[in-house]
């Protein structure tokens, strides 16, 4: 009993110390480098590694900035905790590639007086309306959900126009919203209906409800010979079942080049993916059967970095109504090796598309919203 009481007293004292603290954030010196915390949910994907390499190997060498990456953030609580730790370490801003709960991320940043920018994906419309005038919300530059839908739509239209009659579809990691929107666009782009619907909201809603693409609900001129999603023990069995039916094309809304490139190249079936411009995909297109790639490029996260720099230095970019940056960034598309190499080689190492010279045009006290809009639209 005595021992138990001792334990309780010690724990109570420690909990009191843990909980009873408070205070305000200190002032940052003008000559110290900008410190940016980066929230990441994906630490190993090629696209994520490309973004990281651009920030750490190019931006950090050309600007007085320190990037600190989190470990893989699994949920909203981990995101909030990471932001609070960056605040406790005196960071200036947060760039977020993690999307478990963007509203809580933004609230936490505002509470801790940290600037916050969305580096990948976008807030949904209602969230943007809620936060667009928040003094710590820098903004968002990237593909919106409509942009994701349009990426799938463009892929579908490309193959429909090419005259494919049979396709296999890979839904990647549906119900991941990004993949749901792309899959919906792909189905509509092929000229098909899903559950009788062909408009974005109706198809997206049904796919969310089905937790995948139900082939029996697809109707139209192109036959879907098989569908698979996710990645597990039976994935390759499912893939080979589709390959065995020799479809005209295998269309993926993400990650197929990572998982299935060898199998599809070997089977001689042309395939398409929404991924990124990497050396592996260059080979898949020049020597393999990859015939369509929609992708981001590593330095596409350059403009949002520039917006953060402006915010930290007192120029929070706003439109005429005082709203935060919100610019849609489209995917680049390559359907042949020349186009692919032009994009890929134009965004490497020391010569990214958004290089220092380009970014410097939108960094400064007089830079406006329209300068950013023009820059993003031009790339």
């Amino acid at each position: 009993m005595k021992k138990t009481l001792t334990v309780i007293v010690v724990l109570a004292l420690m909990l009191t110390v843990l909980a009873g603290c408070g205070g305000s954030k200190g002032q940052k010196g003008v000559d110290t480098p900008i410190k940016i915390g980066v929230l990441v949910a994906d630490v190993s994907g090629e696209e994520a590694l490309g973004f990281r390499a651009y920030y750490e190997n190019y931006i950090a060498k050309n600007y007085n900035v320190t990037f600190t990456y989190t470990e893989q953030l699994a949920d909203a609580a981990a995101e909030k905790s990471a932001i609070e730790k960056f605040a406790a370490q005196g960071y200036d801003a947060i760039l977020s590639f993690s999307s478990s709960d963007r509203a809580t991320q933004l609230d936490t940043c505002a509470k801790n007086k940290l600037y916050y920018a969305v580096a990948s994906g976008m807030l949904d419309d209602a969230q943007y309306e809620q936060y667009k005038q928040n003094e710590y919300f820098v903004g968002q530059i990237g593909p919106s959900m409509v942009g994701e839908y349009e990426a799938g739509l463009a892929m579908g239209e490309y193959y429909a126009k090419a005259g494919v009659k049979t396709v296999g579809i890979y839904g990647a990691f549906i119900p991941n919203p990004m993949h749901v929107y792309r899959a919906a666009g792909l189905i509509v782009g092929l000229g098909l209906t899903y559950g009788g619907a062909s408009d974005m909201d109706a198809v997206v809603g049904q796919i969310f409800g089905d937790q995948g693409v139900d082939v029996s609900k697809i109707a139209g001129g192109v036959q879907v010979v098989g569908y698979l999603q996710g990645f597990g023990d039976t994935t390759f069995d499912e893939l080979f079942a589709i390959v065995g039916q020799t479809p005209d094309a295998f269309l993926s809304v993400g990650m197929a080049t990572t998982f299935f490139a060898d199998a599809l190249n070997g089977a001689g079936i042309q395939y398409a993916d929404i991924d990124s411009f990497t050396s592996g995909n260059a080979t898949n297109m020049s020597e393999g059967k990859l015939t369509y790639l929609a992708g981001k490029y590593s330095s596409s996260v350059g403009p949002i970095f520039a917006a953060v720099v402006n915010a930290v230095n007192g120029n929070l970019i706003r439109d005429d109504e005082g709203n935060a940056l919100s610019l849609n960034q489209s995917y680049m598309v390559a359907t042949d090796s020349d186009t692919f190499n032009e994009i890929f080689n134009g965004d490497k190492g020391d010569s990214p598309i958004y290089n220092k010279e380009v970014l410097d045009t939108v960094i400064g006290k007089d830079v406006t919203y329209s300068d950013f809009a023009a820059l993003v639209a031009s790339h």
Partner: protein
Amino acid sequence: MEKTKSENPDVRKYKLRQTLIDILPLAALAVLFAAFCGIVAGKGYRLDMYLNIIFNEGVVLAVVATGAIFIYSLGSFDISLGASTLFSATLGVMAYNATGSLPVMLLVIFGVAVGCSLLSSVLASVFHIPVFVTTVAMMSVLSAIASQIISVNGGALGGISIPAEVVAPFEPPVVKIVFLAVFCAACFFIFDFTKVGRRQKFLGGNPVCAKLTGISLNKYAIIAFVIAGVGVGLGAFLTLVYTPSVTASTAGSIGMNILVAIVFGGMPISGGPRSRIYSALIGGFSYILLNNILKLIIDSNTGYGISQIVSAVFFLAVVYVTGLNYRTRNLPR
């Protein structure tokens, strides 16, 4: 006779060792706490903010693990507690969004949490299979249903949420401390001062003898799971207080972290008479402190997963040391 025994150097040495091992978890917590404060202060970071973060990270784990002690003391095991937390929080959010009522949300959270726990234990009783087997099945089922609800209702956001203002009154640390203290005190009372706790420890220590003395394993398993369910409900609510949203990965690590916390707190995984209700509290915060110390020492930019590896090695070491407390050459249970 007593005097002679106490003067025996071997007995004295044995008692000293037992005492040292008994206080080891608390001493380790104190050392980790001091080390953490030293490192944070040494790096020039805001200690006050870091301490709040540690508390917030640890409180949900401590609450759920404290309830789980009742299950572990029986020598049983529940891997579904994380999934139950997710499921309860999910239905709680759905209930609030349907009714706009906080009391209804709380009722649903606690009702669902206790219901899930009861289902696990009742299924085990009906089908005469080990409880942990039913909890494995429950983990899969609850996660799948919660994911389905979240993705259907969350849409493009990938999650469901309630307005932050709803839970804002519960956010101050002092409120959470009250919740934690009341729950732990109630568990402490039941575990150490009622026949429920005593019989559960007896069942965990020697189920055959317990059965022969007329103690029903099923009855006390059901009680244990109900209390654990209350812990899960409180954990789910505190999860929503910290982040008022639920995604498919919410509380995903709690199931395994409970096991680690209980071991760090010095309790044998096999349960029995050496089970201690405060093991979860000590172990939960020790584990959180250790993780954060490692993250502070190991620069996250140098590589992922190093802190987890060090943590795992530490875990094995703790299991070995605490195992000395109940390892015996005579009369294995």
